[in-house]
C-alpha cells in the first residue's frame, strides 16, 4: 500500500532526486591533484597512476584557490605544495586549467623539482610575492623554475 | 366538464342573451382564476383553429449576428419563434420586437404579414419602449401576485393600473380589498409579498396576448365588478379587449409586454397605501400596491437599490381611480391606456 503510494509519488514527480547543477571543481580535502614539476617523487606518483591527495589546505576556508599552500599525501609521504592551476571557474583574465596542478615544495618554499612543464598563470607572481614574508618561506623560487606564463 | 365549458363558450360567442350567471358572483377567487384561464385557453384554441390553411410570410430580420430573411407561418409564428431560429441568446434577452421600424410588437404575438423585424433587449440603443413594456409587465405581475398572496378568506378584486411612468419610481396596481378595513402592512408582510412576486417571476412563464370580444371579456371578468365596469369603455373603439395571460392569471392591458417573466430580475414590493377617495364610490377599500424592479442582468449596487426602494415607499402620485366623483370614466380611460 505504502509502497504503491511512494512509487506513484516518485513517478508523478519527474524531476530527478539529485541536483544537476555543474560541479564547482573546488580543491578540498581528498581532492586528487596533478604534479606538474619534475621532482622525483612527483614524477613517480604520476607515472604509477597514484596522484597526490589533498589532506590539508592552509587557509581559513579550507578550499584551495590559486596560489594556496596545501599538504598532500603522495606515495605514503606528506609533502607541501602550491596550487598553480585550477579547474574551477576563475575570474576574468585568469586562466582556467583542465586539471588541478600542484608544484611540490619543502617547508622553506623551495621547489622539489627544477622545472615546471606546464604554463603558470601570471597572477601567481603577485600572489606568491604577497605570501612571501621576509622571515618566512620564500615561495618566489617557484616562479624561477617556471618555463612559461600565460 | 370540458364539454360543458365548450358549449358554454359556443353560446357566449354566439352572443347569447344570458347576462350573468348568478352563481359566478360567488365564486371564490381561485375558482374565478381557473375559470378565466380555461376561457382564455379555449378562446385561444378557437382563434388558432380559425387560421385554417397555413400561409407563409417573409420576415426580414435586422441585427446581430447578420441580417436574414425568415419564412414564417402567418398568424401562427411569433417574433419569439424567429428568435428561436437565431440563438438561445436572442430568445433569452430580447424583450420586445420592433415591426417595420414603427410598431412595437409582443414577443408572443403572432405576426400577420410580411414585415421587417428587430429584436430589442433592455440594453439596446433606445430602450424607451422596452422600459415602458417592462414597467407595465411589472404592474401586471403585481396584480397576479396580489391575487395569489392572500388567503381565501380575503377576497381580492383587482381594479386597474395606470400607464407606466418610470420616473415616478415605482410600478403600481390598485387593488380592492373589501374585507380589510384599515390594513397597514408590516415589513414582514411586504417581504412575503415580494417573495411571492419573485416566486411567480422565477416560473419564467411567457406573457401571452389575446384579443377577445367584449362579451367574452365580460363573461371572464364576471366576478370583478370593477373590471366589468371598465370593459365597455375599453371596447368602445373596436369592440375588442386585449388580454394578457401569465401562468393562470389573466388581466386586461393594452400592451405590449416583455417576453417572459424570467426577464424580471431584482424586485421589491415596497409599500401598500390606502387610497382615500370619495364616499360615493363603491371601491372604498382601494389599496395601491407599489414596487420597484430591475431587469435580469442589470447589476446595481445594493446602496443604489436601497435608494430606489426608499423612494418607491412613498405614495405614488399617479391618478387615483377614486379621487374625484367623476373618476369612473377616467379610471376606465386609464385602464384603456394601460
Amino acid at each position, binding site marked *: 500500500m505504502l509502497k504503491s503510494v511512494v512509487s506513484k509519488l516518485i*513517478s*508523478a514527480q*519527474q524531476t530527478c532526486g539529485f541536483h544537476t547543477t555543474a560541479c564547482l571543481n573546488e580543491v578540498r580535502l581528498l581532492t586528487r591533484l596533478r604534479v606538474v614539476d619534475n621532482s622525483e617523487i612527483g614524477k613517480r606518483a604520476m607515472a604509477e597512476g597514484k596522484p597526490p591527495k589533498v589532506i590539508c589546505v592552509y587557509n581559513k576556508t579550507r578550499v584551495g584557490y590559486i596560489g594556496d599552500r596545501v599538504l598532500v599525501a603522495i606515495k605514503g609521504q606528506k609533502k607541501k605544495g602550491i596550487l598553480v592551476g585550477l579547474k574551477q571557474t576563475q575570474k576574468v583574465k585568469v586562466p582556467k586549467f583542465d586539471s588541478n596542478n600542484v608544484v611540490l615544495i619543502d617547508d622553506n618554499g623551495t621547489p622539489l623539482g627544477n622545472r615546471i612543464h606546464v604554463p603558470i598563470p601570471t597572477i601567481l607572481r603577485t600572489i606568491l610575492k604577497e605570501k612571501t614574508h621576509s622571515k618566512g618561506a620564500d615561495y618566489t623560487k617557484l616562479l624561477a623554475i617556471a618555463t612559461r606564463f600565460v | 366538464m370540458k364539454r360543458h365549458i365548450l358549449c358554454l363558450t359556443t353560446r357566449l360567442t354566439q352572443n347569447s342573451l344570458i347576462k350573468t350567471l348568478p352563481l359566478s358572483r360567488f365564486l371564490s377567487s381561485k375558482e374565478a382564476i381557473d375559470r378565466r384561464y380555461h376561457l382564455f385557453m379555449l378562446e385561444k384554441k378557437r382563434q388558432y383553429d380559425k387560421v385554417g390553411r397555413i400561409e407563409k410570410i417573409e420576415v426580414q430580420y435586422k441585427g*446581430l*449576428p447578420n441580417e436574414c430573411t425568415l419564412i414564417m407561418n402567418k398568424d401562427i409564428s411569433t417574433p419569439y419563434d424567429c428568435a428561436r431560429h437565431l440563438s438561445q*441568446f436572442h430568445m433569452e434577452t430580447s424583450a420586445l420586437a420592433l415591426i417595420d421600424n414603427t410598431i412595437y410588437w409582443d414577443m408572443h404575438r403572432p405576426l400577420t404579414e410580411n414585415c421587417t423585424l428587430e429584436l430589442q433587449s*433592455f*440594453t439596446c*440603443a*433606445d*430602450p*424607451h419602449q422596452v*422600459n415602458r413594456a*417592462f*414597467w407595465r409587465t411589472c404592474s401586471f405581475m403585481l396584480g397576479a401576485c396580489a391575487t395569489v398572496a392572500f388567503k381565501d378568506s380575503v377576497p381580492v378584486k383587482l381594479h386597474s393600473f395606470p400607464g407606466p411612468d*418610470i*420616473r*415616478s*419610481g415605482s410600478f403600481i396596481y390598485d387593488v380592492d380589498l373589501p374585507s380589510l378595513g384599515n390594513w397597514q402592512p408590516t415589513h414582514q408582510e411586504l417581504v412575503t409579498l415580494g417573495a411571492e412576486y419573485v416566486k411567480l417571476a422565477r416560473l419564467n412563464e411567457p406573457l401571452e396576448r389575446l384579443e377577445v370580444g367584449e362579451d367574452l371579456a365580460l363573461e371572464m371578468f364576471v366576478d370583478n365588478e370593477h373590471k366589468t365596469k371598465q370593459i365597455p369603455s375599453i371596447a368602445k373603439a373596436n369592440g375588442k379587449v386585449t388580454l394578457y395571460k401569465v401562468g393562470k392569471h389573466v388581466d386586461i392591458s393594452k400592451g405590449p409586454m416583455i417576453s417572459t417573466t424570467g426577464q424580471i430580475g431584482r424586485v421589491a414590493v415596497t409599500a401598500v397605501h390606502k387610497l382615500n377617495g370619495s364616499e360615493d364610490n363603491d371601491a372604498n377599500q382601494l389599496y395601491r400596491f407599489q414596487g*420597484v424592479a*430591475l*431587469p435580469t442582468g*442589470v447589476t*446595481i449596487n445594493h446602496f*443604489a437599490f436601497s*435608494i*430606489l426602494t426608499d*423612494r418607491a415607499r412613498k405614495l405614488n402620485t399617479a391618478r387615483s381611480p377614486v379621487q374625484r366623483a367623476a373618476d369612473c370614466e377616467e379610471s376606465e380611460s386609464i385602464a384603456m391606456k394601460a
Partner: protein
Amino acid sequence: MNQAEVSKLVSKLRIKVPPKHRKLPNPKGPEGRLDKLRKTVTGLIKYERIELNYNRADEARQYAERLISEAIRHGDCHKPTMDTANFWLLEKELVHKLFKVLVPRFENSSVAYTKLYNAPKPQYARVLDKAVLELKGNPYPELGNKQTNNKYFIQNILLDAAKHEYRQAKYAEVANKIGQAGNETSPVNTENAEKLNEKPMSS
C-alpha cells in the same frame, strides 16, 4: 545576464507577457503542459470563444497569439511554420482555417488578436478564477456591454429620477429656511427665496 537568441526573429506580441511561464502542474511535466495548451489553442481556433480557468486561458492566449503572428509573418509556404501549426492544431482542418481565415483577418491588425475577459464566479466558493478567451472578430455578440452609460437604461432613469426628487426636496428645504429667515428680518428677501426655488425647477 544572458545574451538574446539571434538565430530566430519573432514579431512582438501585443499582449503583456509575464516574465515566467506558468507550469500548469501535470504529471507528464512540460510535455503534458504543452499537451494541455495544445488542446486549448485548438479549441480557441475552432470555437473562437471558450470559457476556462484563468491560468490556462492566459497561458494559452500567449501561445495562440504567437501562432497567429508566426502564421502572419511567414505565410503558409514556410515549412517550419507549417510544422508548428501542425503541432499546435490537433484538428488538421484548422490549419487551413489558420492560414486562410485568420491570417487575412488579422493581417492589418495593430492590436492583439485575442481578448481575455474575467468571467464571474460564485462569490463564496473556493474555485479557480474563470476567464473567457476569444479571438477578435468572432461572429458572436459582444461580451462586454459597450453602452453601459446609456442614460435611457431603466436603472439610470430610476436613479436619475431619485436624484432629481432628492434635489427638489433639498431646494425646497433651503427655500423654506430662507423664507422663514426673511419673514423674521425683512420681507425683501422673500423674492430671492422664490427665485431660488424656481431655479432648480427650470434647470
